[in-house]
């Protein structure tokens, strides 16, 4: 259903692949937050997301909130099981972060806005 990266022109070298997969500083972020009704968890997730975006992606992000209670048929499109789920549509590749984004550090790692801290 999702076009795999192989459908795009193949990058020539490992260097290029790495550069392509790393979100650049000027990319516009397309984010979609799936929720199910106005639950406290959904509201918390949206608030947490908003905060992260303002801090790290000010001016270059879009957040679309999809309420599955209103549009259940949309759940299949992004293979949503857990609620809330944040989907990073752009930049590629697709990332999903489930949970209310309470743990900002992990959310940043999940969104590839920060390298994971080296394991101790």
């Amino acid at each position: 259903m999702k076009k795999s990266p192989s459908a795009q022109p193949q990058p020539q070298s490992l260097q290029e692949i790495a550069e392509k997969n790393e979100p650049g500083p000027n990319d516009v972020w397309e984010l979609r937050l799936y929720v199910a009704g106005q639950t406290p968890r959904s509201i918390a997730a949206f608030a947490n997301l908003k905060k992260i975006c303002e801090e790290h992606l000010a001016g270059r992000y879009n957040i679309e909130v999809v309420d599955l209670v209103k549009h259940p048929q949309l759940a299949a499109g992004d293979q949503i099981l857990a609620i809330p789920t944040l989907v990073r549509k752009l930049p590629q590749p697709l990332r999903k972060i489930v949970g209310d984004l309470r743990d900002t550090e992990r959310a940043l790692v999940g969104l590839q806005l920060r390298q994971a801290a080296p394991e101790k």
Partner: protein
Amino acid sequence: MSKTAPRRDKENRSLPKAATGIQGLDEITEGGFPRGRPTLICGSAGAGKTLLAMEFLVRGATEYNEPGVFMAFEETAPELTQNVRSLGFDLDELAKEKKLLIDYVRIERSEIDETGDYDLEGLFIRLSSAIDAIGAKRVVLDTIENLFAGLQNQGILRAELRRLFRWLKDQGVSAVITAERGEGALTRHGLEEYVSDCVILLDHRVTDQVSTRRLRIVKYRGTAHGTNEYPFLIDEDGFSVLPVTSLGLQHEVSEERISSGIPRLDTMLGGEGFYRGTTILVSGTAGTGKTSMAAHFVDAACRRGERCLYFSFEESAGQMVRNMRSIGLNLDQWTRKNLLQFHSSRATFYGLEMHLAIIHKIVQEFEPRVVVIDPVGSLIQAGNRRDAHTMLIRLIDFLKQREVTALLTNLTSAGDALEKTDVEISSIVDSWLFVRDIELNGERNRALYVLKSRGMAHSNQLREFLLTSRGVDLLDVYVGPEGVLTGSSRLSQEARENAARVARQQDAERKDRERIRKRELLEARIAALRKEFETEEEDAETSSAQGSSREKLIAENREAMARSRHADRVKDATVPRGRRTQ
């Protein structure tokens, strides 16, 4: 059995079932899976979980008008469609008719991160909208355990699964959840903890390179289910479970007698042949004519207009027909009239369960009165000894239940004790005929005897078994001071006896002749003596006549003389005259 029957009725009323439509499974579950409740199907990889679940949906949609949702966590809809097409299920068509909905759920661990609390409301919403879309009554989750691979937070996951099963019950759908078998537990992630109404275990074992599939109901709340392991098979008609162990010894018995096809054998069996619906074993060493006896039996049944099934594990149908023609049996005519069906396959071709399931199925389809399994020992090659034994008992019970007369042949290997069967079925058969070789004077001859035949006064005699161009013939064997003789020994003994008899006869004739001669001699002598006597008698008569005439003459002379002397007439001059006066 009679005691449990009323209780079962009550249970059926209290616990509604959703029929699976799967052959045999509804029998052992007494009606199907619990309606409106989840059922767990567990088993190792390749055990047939997905197929069982899919057939539950397809049968529900096609036979019971209950649409179903298949939530696939492993395979995509096109893959599933393709996989079950070989079983004759057209999922595309069902999907078009809105009777089936496949929802593929993909979980990619690598693209998911977790942070903070979440729930599985998304799954609930998807399931709910799928159920609503087609008005589903049945749901399959195959296999929901994949969630454990995709999500890290086990605490949340378990709580959500508990909620999911609760929710499924509230929806009133009959759900089937499949799960992978775990080490030392039914499922890898302990799903049996959540699904407690009905748990079914599928097993796929390979013993001696032959695989057998088995199904067991681990638990079924509120139903007196069968607890055994039931073999099942997956073939072009889908899933079928062999419920034969649920049979008992309650079959009807028949008083009817049927001919063995060999008149002389019938007379050995109390004069009338076998009882209908019994099991007959013909055992013997190689080449003793077991198949020929079976063919006679089949021929006789077809002559009576009864349908027969012949399972041959050694010969093809064509070979059988040809070979039996050599003993004067035209089996071809019966196959053409569809009274006789041959099913030939190599015993090693399938596993034992497959064989029995096939037999089971064909018997149900063809509804024969007579079934021949030739030879039954071949089935051991397809399974192990103990399995073969239990399976055979099941098969025999199944056939008895249907009042099918079964004839089994069994090869006794040369090294074994003669009265021994490979699968130790001698105790479960009703009649046992034994054909053996008698080797004497450089030749082998066949001899037959009835080892046992329940419920009839059968002959205890050994009979010589001849295969002629007119069929099987039974002859009395020679039993005498020389022992039991058959074949040319019997013939030569008979010749010897004939010669002796002729000699005895000649001797008697000679003695007769001598006696006649003696009598003739005696009679001749008697005749001679009589002649002699007669002569003597004649002489005596002659002389006495002469005497009296002389006296008369003397008297006449004296009278004449007296007359001449003019003597006075004296009366009573003679003595006789004087005697007369006194």
